[in-house]
């Protein structure tokens, strides 16, 4: 090789890499877990949840340490109140958080009752009027006034004197009942405005993060702010549990980092030792590194297509460039060990390199049509990267390869095709077992299978549910509208429909803040109701009251109120009232916080209703979207079924497309069935073994299996191609050796990931180990056996 020419090639390669680095330097990396989701309905759902602030909510449950058994009940309550007050106020002052709810304002109950009393006719439904009607009989009134008389003379009488005069029939109880709709299945009790658990040993704070909690960098920042607030605000003996997306995002990010810190050096070291032991030439290590010089250019190209790139896609896409290492190894080994001149060797190796690169690129082209955005980014990166990496390998590896001093003819041998029948039977059995296992596999769309749930998270969540409820899953029904009135009207329809189907445990603002349509209807019903009864009821109350010991006209404030014109409740009364934080947590006004990154439809108003998500309620919830315009139902069961459907659809579509493309390419290249089958044999083995392995493990296939499965197909088909091409040129030991080198390097590189704690990385490692573990021996022992009769016929 001309030295100048070699330097020029390396110069071009380094220039390309440097240019790529420069062009890629400004890339915006996102670490958002949402990038792993299909971007149709499910992704939209999560964005809606984010907009409602539900994904970004941090729940902090302050608890008295179980060891503090000697502290009195009052002492516990005081410690929790002080801690909640201090932590809550620190969080509320921090711009990282928007809504922070830790204490309702003092006297909120009375202020609220006062505010709502004048609007009672607009709030009470027909059902409430029926209840009032049942009270208006002589017996009913007698009972009500007797109770009033007793109440006035009870310890409660002193503060209630004016209240009883204003409301002798206890209509405000109907309001209090309606207020309980804000609670749903949430089991808190309010003491001095603080949210206490039933046993009084826990106190709750919740805050909405202004930063997206599915993003690991943002999650670290939010966690740091929460910890600072806890350190500043918690008194001795009080501890905290943090619940929500935050601990999940942190556990995932930290576990991946920990795994990679531990396993990447191990994988690199293993590879280096392996290559050094086999080749005993440091330049061989450069051969492995060459394909990765394509990475900066591939990233720069990716930047042309995407404004924001998923860090997951970037990291994994670079790993995929490792596929091109196989081509580099084949070129290097062929040049250093195959007989013949350099040009002849390169000519011989050119065909399988082109074939294998074409199939790999074909597989990634298919991945471009995935529903998952990070998959598409990964495919873009891999297509550019693999193509460039193979070009660089073709250009640079010859500058490194040194031919062995002696290349004996023994290198040229006939492959071992002894025990062919036995090998074919065993392979047939493997394929049959794989075919049998395949239908038994279940596409698990539940993202929690890829979620790192530490024992602490599990324990904290179980404790939280036991302390605060609800016991089961919850569904979120979002009513949207261009105006607040429209959204409120739709929200009323949702509530009415759920009530009609006897779904209990609802959390909704509809009972205390109906839309204008329902309010007008309620007022109309109220007027009709009292028009016929008011005079009679007034006389009867006066008569019975006098008999009981009241003076005549004792309840005149009630009748004055009844005669006044009912007033519609303006939503702003509640939105700015004492329950504002609670109301705002269920109502999202457009661009309230100017955070457009969390707002997929900024001009709309969203109102949430929370309902139990059970097999019994789901059929009713599912229908709401069809029944009421502008309503979206978000639930775990829906996500699971949607993701499952999408993944199944994606898997089928992509697998069929990838399969067809590979078969077509094989047919185009080899044009006879037996070489095509022989080249595909490692792929079939890999798929079968992966199916059997997953069947024996938990019968589940998840998103990670699909992704890695496609990569394994791309790698294993290369093994088949190289062996078939080598066989067509008369088998060379070097090809077998190269295939084994590629397989061992892939297995050692990815295999260490089986030691990872993170389920996604573990799945990655295990799938590669199983797939390549099956493809490698198939390429060595089955592919030649399939080719034997074909070869015999040809010769």
């Amino acid at each position: 090789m001309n030295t100048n020419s070699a330097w020029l090639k390396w110069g071009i390669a380094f220039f390309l890499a440097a240019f790529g680095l420069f062009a890629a330097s400004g890339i915006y990396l996102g670490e958002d877990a949402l990038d792993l989701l299909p971007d149709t309905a499910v992704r939209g759902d999560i964005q809606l949840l984010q907009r409602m602030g539900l994904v970004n909510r941090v729940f902090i449950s302050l608890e008295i340490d179980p060891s503090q058994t000697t502290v009195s009940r009052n002492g516990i309550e005081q410690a929790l109140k002080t801690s909640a007050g201090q932590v809550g106020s620190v969080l509320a002052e921090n711009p990282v958080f928007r809504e922070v709810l830790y204490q309702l304002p003092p006297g909120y109950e009375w202020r609220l009752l006062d505010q709502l009393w004048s609007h009672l006719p607009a709030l009470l439904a027909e059902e409430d009027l029926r209840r009032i009607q049942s009270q208006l009989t002589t017996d009913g009134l007698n009972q009500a006034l007797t109770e009033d008389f007793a109440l006035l003379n009870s310890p409660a009488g002193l503060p209630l004197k004016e209240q009883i005069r204003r409301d002798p029939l206890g209509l405000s109880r109907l309001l209090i009942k309606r207020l309980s709709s804000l609670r749903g299945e949430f089991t808190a009790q309010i003491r001095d405005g603080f949210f206490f658990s039933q046993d009084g040993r826990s106190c709750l704070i919740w805050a909405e993060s202004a930063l997206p909690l599915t993003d690991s960098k943002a999650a670290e920042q939010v966690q740091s702010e929460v910890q600072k607030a806890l350190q500043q605000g918690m008194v001795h003996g009080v501890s905290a549990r943090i619940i929500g997306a935050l601990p999940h995002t942190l556990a995932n990010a930290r576990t991946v980092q920990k795994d990679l810190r531990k396993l990447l050096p191990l994988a690199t070291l293993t590879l280096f030792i392996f290559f050094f032991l086999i080749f005993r030439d440091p330049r061989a290590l450069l051969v492995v590194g060459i394909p990765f010089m394509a990475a900066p250019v591939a990233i720069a190209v990716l930047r042309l297509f995407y404004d924001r790139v998923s860090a997951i896609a970037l990291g994994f896409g670079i790993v995929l460039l490792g596929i091109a290492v196989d081509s580099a190894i084949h070129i290097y080994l062929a040049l250093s060990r195959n007989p013949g001149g350099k040009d002849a060797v390169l000519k011989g190796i050119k065909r399988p390199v082109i074939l294998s690169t074409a199939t790999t690129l074909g597989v990634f082209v298919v991945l471009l049509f995935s529903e998952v955005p990070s998959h598409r980014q990964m495919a873009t990166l891999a297509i550019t990267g693999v193509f460039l990496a193979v070009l660089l390998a073709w250009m640079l590896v010859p500058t490194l390869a040194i031919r062995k001093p002696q290349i004996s003819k023994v290198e040229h041998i006939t492959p071992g095709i002894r025990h062919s029948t036995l090998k074919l039977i065993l392979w047939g059995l493997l394929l049959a077992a794989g075919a049998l296992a395949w239908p038994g596999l279940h596409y698990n769309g539940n993202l929690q299978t890829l979620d790192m749930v530490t024992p602490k998270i599990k324990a904290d969540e179980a404790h939280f549910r036991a302390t605060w409820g609800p016991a089961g899953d919850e569904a979120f029904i979002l009513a949207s509208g261009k105006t607040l009135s429209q959204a409120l009207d739709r929200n009323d329809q949702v509530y009415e429909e759920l009530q009609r189907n006897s779904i209990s445990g609802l959390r909704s603002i509809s009972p205390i803040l109906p839309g204008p349509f329902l309010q007008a209807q309620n007022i109309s019903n109220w007027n009709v109701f009292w028009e016929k009864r008011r005079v009679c009821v007034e006389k009867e109350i006066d008569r019975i009251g006098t008999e009981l010991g009241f003076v005549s006209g004792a309840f005149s404030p009630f009748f004055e109120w009844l005669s006044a014109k009912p007033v519609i409740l303006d939503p702003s009364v509640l939105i700015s009232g004492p329950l504002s934080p609670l109301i705002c947590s269920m109502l999202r006004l457009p661009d309230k916080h100017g955070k457009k990154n969390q707002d997929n439809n900024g001009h709309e108003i969203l109102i949430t209703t929370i309902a139990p998500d059970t097999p019994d309620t789901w059929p009713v919830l599912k229908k709401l979207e069809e029944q009421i315009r502008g309503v979206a139902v978000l639930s775990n069961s829906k996500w699971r079924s949607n993701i499952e459907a999408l993944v199944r659809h994606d898997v089928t579509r992509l697998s069929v497309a990838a399969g067809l493309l590979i078969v077509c390419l094989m047919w185009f290249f080899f044009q006879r069935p037996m070489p095509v089958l022989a080249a595909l044999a490692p792929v079939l083995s890999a798929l079968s073994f992966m199916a059997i392995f997953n069947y024996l493990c938990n019968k589940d296939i998840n998103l990670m299996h699909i992704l890695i499965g496609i990569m394994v197909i791309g790698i294993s088909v290369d093994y088949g191609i190289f062996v078939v091409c080598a066989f067509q040129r008369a088998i060379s030991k070097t090809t077998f050796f190269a295939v084994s080198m590629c397989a061992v390097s892939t297995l050692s590189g990815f295999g260490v990931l089986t030691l990872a704690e993170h389920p996604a990385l573990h799945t990655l490692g295990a799938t590669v180990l199983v797939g390549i573990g099956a493809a490698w021996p198939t390429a060595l022992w089955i592919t030649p056996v399939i080719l034997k009769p074909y070869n015999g016929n040809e010769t």
Partner: protein
Amino acid sequence: MRRKLILMLLPLLFIVPPVFAEDNGRLSSFIHEVEAKAATVKTLTCTLKQERHLAIFARPVIFQGRMALEKPDKLRWEFTSPIASVLIFNGAKGLKCSGNSEPQRFNLATDPVMQMVSKQIWTWVNGSYTTLQKQYRMVLLEQGPCLVLTSNDPKIARAISSVKISFNSTSLQPTTVRIQEPGGDHTVISFSDFILNQPLNQSLFTRCSSP
């Protein structure tokens, strides 16, 4: 002349403060004594009589009944005549019965009215007058002896002008509480027949019917 007057008044400047200090000292010492006595009480039963003088009543209404208390959080307030009614607080939960109507269970967490009533009653029956000193101005009158409380909080002052509590001079148990309202309405509650620190039947705090 002016100088003489100043000289004459000068000793008063030194005399008057000790008089106030003495009053405060007596009040503190009395409160300390009452609280010390109250701290020894774990259970209590007594009879009670309540007179309500309200403008909306045609005539004063007199109710009679019993009270039972078990610290820290159980209380039964029962009227036996003229209308039978029971109010029970048991931890965070409660029960109220009136006349022949069905017993109504309530939860302090969800019933703001009862939450407020419970808070008020416990403030008084716990005998924590030191805590009350933060919310009320207190004056100790020798007759009785009795304490007169007026609220510092204008909101409470709008509902209650003053509370006068008379104590038994030997047992230091409150014998009469007079609650005066701004419009002239007032209530007098008298306690008698105290039984202290005797085990109480727990059904007193779980059922409206007497055991």
